[in-house]
């Protein structure tokens, strides 16, 4: 009596599992196919010398661009990862912490660019002592971001310490809106522009194989120094060890004599200071901030943190750099490559080879052949149907490329590229 129903149930369950599995499988196959088509197509088009492909200098420029953008995303992503590691929720207000550092930096920079202008001396303090000025702006930005992060923790998150983790997450969205609108009310809608950086910084620096614009090089260098300093802090100091302990298991850490509250405040402060560094770097490169400047970088940094593995600090850095590169170089390469028609000969080979692989995989149950086989079949079909997509404005959808990376990582490696670091409550 029980045996027949059990087999019926298991087959039913297995049937439903197969349906979901095959849907996910199709999604995987199509997404990898699109990327491969784009990449191979771009290389083919570049070899043919199609107008619109990048030459070497332009490609290197875009890569440097992506690295500097990625460095900024990485710095902000560190804040997301650290807070997730310690408290287990995503702090959506972190983008606004970044924006407030940029705003205060603007006011300092603006003041410095007006100071020191007399009748005899037309250049301002900012022009004459640029390095000192930018240092002051950095310190101001870091202090502001740190303060805002600590205040937000004290006011919005500490009272919710025992609540289910969805509650502080929603609160953080509210804090994000509050900060955006507070800045809007206080300072108006007009974008604020930083004073110009001196010419010697904007000149291209020759590094042997590449020429890099001075500001971008500075961004990469300062971001790298900050990240190294952070890792030293977390791995070598006692406070850093306390942070890692609290992230591992809050209760045991408390039993070991660590002041959990103080450690959490330190985590927020350190995350905030990284965001402050990122804010001033962003301002040096893009020079304009308004009350919504923090929103999109915040979201992208959160994406970067998830791509690298949430809770994992090295992952956040890698994720940020990867995202920056995808966003910068992706549209002009992968999206551009989609206009390449796969030649018929190659398509036929792919189709036959793919069908064979799929058939072999299905009959012999060697699932390793199924995915590549399906992709090859798709390639063959694309070639036979002469598919080609010419996207009119590539950079209008560059955010799609960036978030597509998140999508792919979540499909193929849900725990992130370097694996997530979950707190004790989340681990099985």
């Amino acid at each position, binding site marked *: 009596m029980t045996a027949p129903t059990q087999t019926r149930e298991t087959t039913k369950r297995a049937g439903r599992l197969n349906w979901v599995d095959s849907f996910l499988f199709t999604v995987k196959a199509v997404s990898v196919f699109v990327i491969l088509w784009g990449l191979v197509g771009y290389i083919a088009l570049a070899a043919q010398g199609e*107008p*619109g*492909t*990048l030459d070497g*200098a*332009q490609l290197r*420029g*875009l890569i440097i*661009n992506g690295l500097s*953008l990625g460095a900024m995303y990485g710095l902000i992503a560190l804040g997301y990862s650290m807070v997730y590691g310690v408290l287990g929720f995503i702090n959506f207000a972190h983008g606004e912490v970044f924006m407030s550092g940029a705003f205060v930096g603007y006011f300092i920079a603006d003041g410095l660019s007006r100071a020191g202008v007399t009748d005899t001396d037309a250049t301002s303090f900012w022009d004459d002592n640029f390095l000192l000025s930018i240092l002051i702006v950095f310190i101001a930005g870091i202090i502001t971001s740190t303060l805002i992060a600590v205040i937000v923790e004290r006011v919005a998150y500490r009272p919710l310490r025992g609540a289910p983790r969805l509650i502080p997450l929603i609160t953080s969205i509210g804090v994000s809106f509050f900060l955006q609108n507070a800045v809007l009310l206080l300072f108006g*809608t*007009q*974008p604020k*522009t930083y004073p*110009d950086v001196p010419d010697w910084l*904007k000149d291209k620096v020759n590094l042997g194989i590449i020429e890099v*614009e001075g500001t971008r090089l500075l961004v990469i260098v300062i971001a790298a120094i900050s990240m190294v300093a952070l890792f030293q802090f977390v791995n070598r100091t006692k406070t850093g060890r306390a942070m890692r302990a609290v992230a591992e298991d809050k209760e045991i850490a408390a039993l070991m004599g660590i002041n959990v509250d103080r450690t959490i405040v330190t985590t927020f402060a350190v995350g905030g200071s990284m965001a402050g560094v990122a804010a001033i770097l*962003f301002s040096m490169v*893009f*020079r*304009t901030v*308004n009350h*919504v*400047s923090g*929103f*999109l970088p915040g979201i992208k940094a959160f994406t970067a943190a998830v791509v690298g593995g949430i809770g994992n600090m090295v992952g956040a850095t890698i994720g940020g750099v990867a995202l920056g590169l995808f*966003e*910068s170089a992706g*549209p*002009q390469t992968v999206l551009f490559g989609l206009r390449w028609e796969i030649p018929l000969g190659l398509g036929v080979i792919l189709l036959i080879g793919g069908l064979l692989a799929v058939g072999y995989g299905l009959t012999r149950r060697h699932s390793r052949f199924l995915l590549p086989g399906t992709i090859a079949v798709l390639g063959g079909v694309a070639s036979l149907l002469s598919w080609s997509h010419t996207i*009119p*404005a*590539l*950079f*209008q959808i*560059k*955010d799609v490329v960036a978030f597509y990376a998140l999508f792919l990582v979540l499909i193929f490696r849900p725990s992130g590229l370097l694996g997530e670091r979950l707190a004790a409550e989340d681990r099985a």
Partner: protein
Amino acid sequence: MTTKFRYLVGLLAALALVAAACGDSADDTTTAAPGTTAAPATTAAPTTEAPTTAAPTTAAPQPPEAGPLGQVVLEAGEDIQIRSLEAITGPVTFLGVPNQRGTEFAIEDYGDIKGHSVSMGTPLDDLCSADGGQAAAQTIVSDDAVVGVIGTSCSGAAVAAAPLISAAGMVMISPSNTSPALTSDLQGNAGTDYNDGYFRTAHNDLFQGAGVARFVFDELQLTKVAAIHDGDPYTQGLAKAFSDAFTALGGEVVAFTAVNKGDTDMTGVLSEVAGFSPEAIYFPIFQPEGDFIVQQIGGISGLEDVTLIGADGLLVSDFLELPETTGMYFSGPDLRFGENASTTGVTADDFLARYEEAFGEAPSASFWAHSYDATIMLLTSIDAVAVEFDGKLYIDRQALRDELKSVTDFPGIIGLLTCDDFGDCGAQRISVVLHEGDAEAAVSNVKYGATRADLIDLITGG
């Protein structure tokens, strides 16, 4: 904890009640469109006697019957309701606020219509987006007493608002929408977003695109250009109008691409454009994307000597103060109004002096005159179709629309207004100005001007 919670809820409820009670009570007007049944019912009684007697007494006059769109009926002493729907918050306030102030001045200057004063009610916000336009339009159409709307500021908001307002029988006259899709292609075909109750005193962007194309091709003598828009109906329509006109003149549009609103990193799109070696770039977008483009273009090899041309979305003092914008051209409506006067007798100089006195600054955008003229045109038309009967004022909606459609050579500050079949009532005069370093002088530094007659052939291909 629960008592505290209940206390808080009670306090919030009390505050909400107080706020509602002390709120603006501007909407105590009479019924409007369905009033067709109300009016005859009350006044039919005296005429039921003596319908067939051949007595020399004429039958008692009937109140005006409502047309197909209904009519607004106002009791004695009630205000005529119009609304202002402009971008008064957000990054485009520089455009919306002077429009709204132009409407306010016009209402003051026109005065009463047949003994009823005109009220603008609470100014509404279009947020320069389809969402904002839709939300505001829903607020407007929920009030039957509204006769007409002066707005919106942004074409994107009008695309959402105009269908709702037109379906409710009201009219909408925009002072600054320029997208061709909202009216027509000037060759007899309605635009994709055309609605019967929609009019505008701003120019149609087909003229602006053609004007800029003529300027670049004939005056600057450049043949390879690139166009960059930001995806919204106004910028995309204008870039396309420019592209079509420039190609028709014989030039080449080497790149036609877009950025997103909110983008900060323009190096990608500028590298893409640089690959095609344009001689000029036309980017009719807004701040801050315009800021990023001019600041980052210096770092792209291949674009050092390119001529930059923007539109009136960037003709804002904050943008002009950036050092990189010196040498840029800007297209927009021709603001050389000279001695043109509205039917109220107000000229451009009168208006500007009054604006300066009232608000302590010059208008931050160029469409204040279009807004003033739009409001005067609306009020004049209402005056023409409003019928007094038995102490009440009847304003037939269809008659108002027909009256607006028949406007010919109506004197306004911007010139003589004539409305075509699709709602384009503007004077269609375009100019291109050059920014040579002085932010305040830029708007008057005209380098090229064109009128309807100069450009219509290029647009229609004649």
